[in-house]
Every structure is written in C-alpha cells, then in structure tokens.
C-alpha cells in the first residue's frame, strides 16, 4: 500500500440549497492512476476544483501531502498540475506564448521547457499559431502541455482525451502510462470513455449524484467483472440449493431478478445442467456473462449511466 497523498474528509459543496457533492471521503495513494467515474453532473469536476482550490468547500476538508490549511494546500498544489474542463487558453496568443506565460507564472527557470512539452504533445509544428484557431483535440494537447510544464508529482485531469482522434488517444494514454511508470506521477483522471480508463487506471472511484458509490481497485474490479454463469430457472432458490449441495464452496451472487450468478463453474456447465435437471428444476436461461468496466458502471448507476459514452469514437462529435 502506497503513501496516502490526498485525503478528503466528509467533503461537501452546496450551491444554495442544492448539494453538488456530499460526504465525499476518499484517499489517493502515491503512484495510483485513479479514475473518477460518474455521469454528467455527478460532482467529478467539483471535486477536482476543490482539490485545485478553485472552489471552496462548504463542508469537510481536503488534505494534500498532509497539509489542510489554506496556506499548506497552496504549497502542496505547487507539486501538482491540473487540467480541469476545457483547457483554459488565451485564444489570441500562440501555443508557445500560452506556455511561456504559464512558465513565467510557475517560475520555471528553463525557457527550453516550453519547446520540450510542445514536442512531447506533438504541437511543435503549430507552436506559433494562434491557439484560438486550434481544434478541440489540439487545445486538449495544449492543456496537457501546460500540465506537464512544471514536472508535477500529481496530475489531475478532467476529460483529457475529450476531442482527440483515436491516434491521439493512444498517444496520450501511452504518455500518461509512461509518466506514471517512469516518473512515478500519480494521476487522477476522469473520462466518459470508460474503455480508455480501463486501460489506464489502477483504481476507480464511482460517483453519482454528488456521493461516492464505490472506491475499488482495478484488481477488485477485475474480480467483480470476472466471467460468470447466469442461471435463471423456474425455481431459482431450489436451483441454488441443488448447486450448493453438488459443488462445495460455491461462489455465487443473486441478481435483482432472482437469477443466479455463479462463479468458477464455467468448465462444468454440463454438470450444472445435469444436476438441475435431476433435481427437477427447469432452466429458463443458462449463459456465460463477461462484464467490463462499462457494464459494471452501467449496472451500478442504472439509468444514470445513460450519458456515459462506451467507446472512443462516441466523443468525436463533441
């Protein structure tokens, strides 16, 4: 278990009578790539803005690198970088000038760092062009370049691959993985493209309607998503009793509709159906199910998950 570097306690943000987030508790450990997953309006950006000091919480507190005072948090943020919502850029200034302004603001002594990050995100050939004329994907790259400027220890990224073409998505994914593995940068990332997150994240926080529904590691998620046998019969309770009697230490789950989710018997399907038949139970449904992050998320959030895109191309028209 890594060192806890970010911790929230009972965090809440209220606008008038409405809560944007409530009772949010989570911990981020060093080296994590933590995916913040939730539908639009779930509170992901609010959490990121509070971490960045843009929003002031109405309840609870945040601790970053063990500091939770206003001054201490500001000090800790010097070790972080943020890309929240659409990158904030000066549209009349070139990509180079935007980065140069941020370099001066962050007090980075080496002016060559600007060229380095432009190259890193593939904008070296358009660095002199006005950023206002950039496509959304190029603006995203510029936002990532600004984030990388100060060589942060923690990167907080809100929808960083939004608007990128498939090639760009792969590049950014590889870049983030490289930064995490080689530079040991901790990353907190939100995205609607869950298939992408599943290729990146070591941990997930599921959030909906301003509250955290589940914090889970990638390993735990994998276990939860592992292949299972879905069995629905004319008498599911009896079917369960038969299978428990037949197979020792049966690992199972009961779905909302009463059907059974059985783990670890995929190699014994013949035995399963035979036992059920001999026990006098008529199988109505017998199938293999393999869940992924998207399905897991959809199952967890129900109708609220409808806004989540399920593949990279879904965001291309944004």
């Amino acid at each position, binding site marked *: 278990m890594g060192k806890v570097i970010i911790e929230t306690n009972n965090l809440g943000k209220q606008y008038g009578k409405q809560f944007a987030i409530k009772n949010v508790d989570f911990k981020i450990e060093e080296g994590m790539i933590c995916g913040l997953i939730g539908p639009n309006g779930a509170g992901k950006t609010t959490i990121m803005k509070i971490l*960045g000091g843009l929003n002031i919480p109405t309840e609870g507190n945040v601790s970053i690198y063990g500091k939770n005072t206003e001054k201490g948090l500001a000090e800790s943020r010097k070790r972080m970088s943020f890309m929240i919502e659409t990158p904030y850029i000066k549209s009349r200034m070139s990509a180079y000038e935007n980065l140069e302004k941020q370099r*001066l603001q*962050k007090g980075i002594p080496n002016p060559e760092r600007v060229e380095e990050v432009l190259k890193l995100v593939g904008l070296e050939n358009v660095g002199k062009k006005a950023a206002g004329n950039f496509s959304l994907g190029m603006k995203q790259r510029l936002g990532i370049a600004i984030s990388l400027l100060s060589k942060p220890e923690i990167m907080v990224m809100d929808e960083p691959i939004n608007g990128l073409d498939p090639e760009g998505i792969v590049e950014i994914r590889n870049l983030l993985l490289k930064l995490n593995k080689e530079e040991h940068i901790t990353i907190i990332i939100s995205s609607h493209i869950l298939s992408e997150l599943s290729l990146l994240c070591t941990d997930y926080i599921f959030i909906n309607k301003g509250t955290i529904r589940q914090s889970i590691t990638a390993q735990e998620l994998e276990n939860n998503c592992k292949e299972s046998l879905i069995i629905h019969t004319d008498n599911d309770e009896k079917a369960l009793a038969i299978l428990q009697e037949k197979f020792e230490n049966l690992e199972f789950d009961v779905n909302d509709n009463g059907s059974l989710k059985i783990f670890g018997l995929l190699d014994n399907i013949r035995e399963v159906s035979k036992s059920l038949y001999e026990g006098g139970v008529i199988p109505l449904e017998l199938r293999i199910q393999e869940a992924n992050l998207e399905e897991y998320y959809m199952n967890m959030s129900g109708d609220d998950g409808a806004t989540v895109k399920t593949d990279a191309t879904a965001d291309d028209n944004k």
Partner: protein
Amino acid sequence: MINIIKAVNYQIKRDITTYIAIGGGLLIALLPILEYGVDGLKELNGGMYAMSYLSVMMFIPYVMSCLIGACIIGKDMGDKTINYEILAGHSRMDAFLARVILAFVWDIGLCILVSALPIGVVTLVNGWGNNVAFADMAARYIVNITSAFRINAFVILITMIVRHPAAGGFISYGVLNASMLPLLVLSETMDIKLYHSVAMADILYMSFISNMRQIVENGEKITVYDMAISNSFLIGAIIVPIVVSVVYVVLACMIFKKRDLK
C-alpha cells in the same frame, strides 16, 4: 507574486488593447495640432499646449482606466486562465494583488506618458512661455493622477464583480460618465461644487479654466491664465482618492477571495 506579475506583464505586452490605448492616447495628444494648425505650432509653447490640452487630458485617465484596468483585471477571469495561478499554488491574494499592481502601474504610467510626453516635447522645442505658471499646471496634473488612482480602483472593483473585461469597462465608463451629470448641473445652475465627492468630481473641476486676463509684455498682448488651486483643495484631492481607492481595492479583494472561480 512576482512570477504572476511577470506572466501577466508578458501577456499585457502582447495584448492589442494595450497598443490601442497607447495609440489612442497619443492621438488625442495631437488634437491641439488641429486647433493651431502646423504653422501655429511654431508659436505654441509648453504652457499653452498644457492649457489647450487640459480639458482633453483630464479625461484620459478614466478612458484609459476603463480600457487598461478592466483588461488587466478581467481578461484572465473571462477566459479562466487566472485559474492556472490558483491551481499552481499561488494564493488568491497574490493573484489579486499582482493584477492590482499591474493595473495601477500600467494605467498611471500610460496616463503620465500620454500627458507628459507631448507637453515635454513642445516645451523642449518652444519653451514653457508666460501664459500659465508651471507650478499651477503641475498641481492640476497631480490631482489628475490621484483621481486616476481612484477611477482605476473603481474599475477594478466593478470588473471584479462582473468578472468580464468588456462588461467591467463599459459599466465603469457608464457609471463614471453618469456621475458627472449632477456635478455639472449643480455647478452650472447653483454654483455648488462637490469637491472630492465622486471619482469624476476633481477631474471635472480641474478641467475648468477659472480666471484669465490679458497683459502686454514686450509690446505684445498675451493671455495669462490663473490656474492656481488652493492647498486645502490639493490636500483633499490627494488624500480622499487614496482613501477611497484603498476601500475599493479591499472590497474587490474580499469579493475575489470569497467567491468560487468558475
């Protein structure tokens, strides 16, 4: 804070608004040429130039403040790039104070440049002359600068409330303009002058030419203007704007510190 000042200054120097303000200000400074004609300029001394320029010059600070001040304070809030400073670990106080300092330096600097440069050039070429006492005119220009402080602080407050440069500039311009109307009415109809009352008051009264007389010097008739202002007025015109400016800036700071950044 010094890093923010460097970064915002870098941006101001690349902002077309800055050059519009400088160009516009210098263009206004050339207005007396229209009045005197190129030939007449040979006889125009520094004192007469300052006199001719006075009514125009007195109003440069508030146009300049509305333009430059609102841009320096509001542009980064309008496009949210100010957020990067907070996200990078600068305190809100630093982000605010850096902009306030720059707004004052650029605004007052440009006001001085636009007013002093043309007068200085004319004085160097044709001398100051005997039409007006240098000390009297200098006092009026000092009052103008202190009023510019107050106007700039007002623009900072308004822009901080609306968080948009154009809206901040236009609203400030409108309010400052409107505030002159009752002053003019009272002054013209009842001869009541509410010195130091609002930001535009002293600027307005300083632009009035009160007494002038004609004298004969070396056989030549010249017009002499009495532009002296009382010491008590001068002290009030320096202290009141500074106090009010501090109040405006503190209010603007409180607003910036307590509100979420979008």
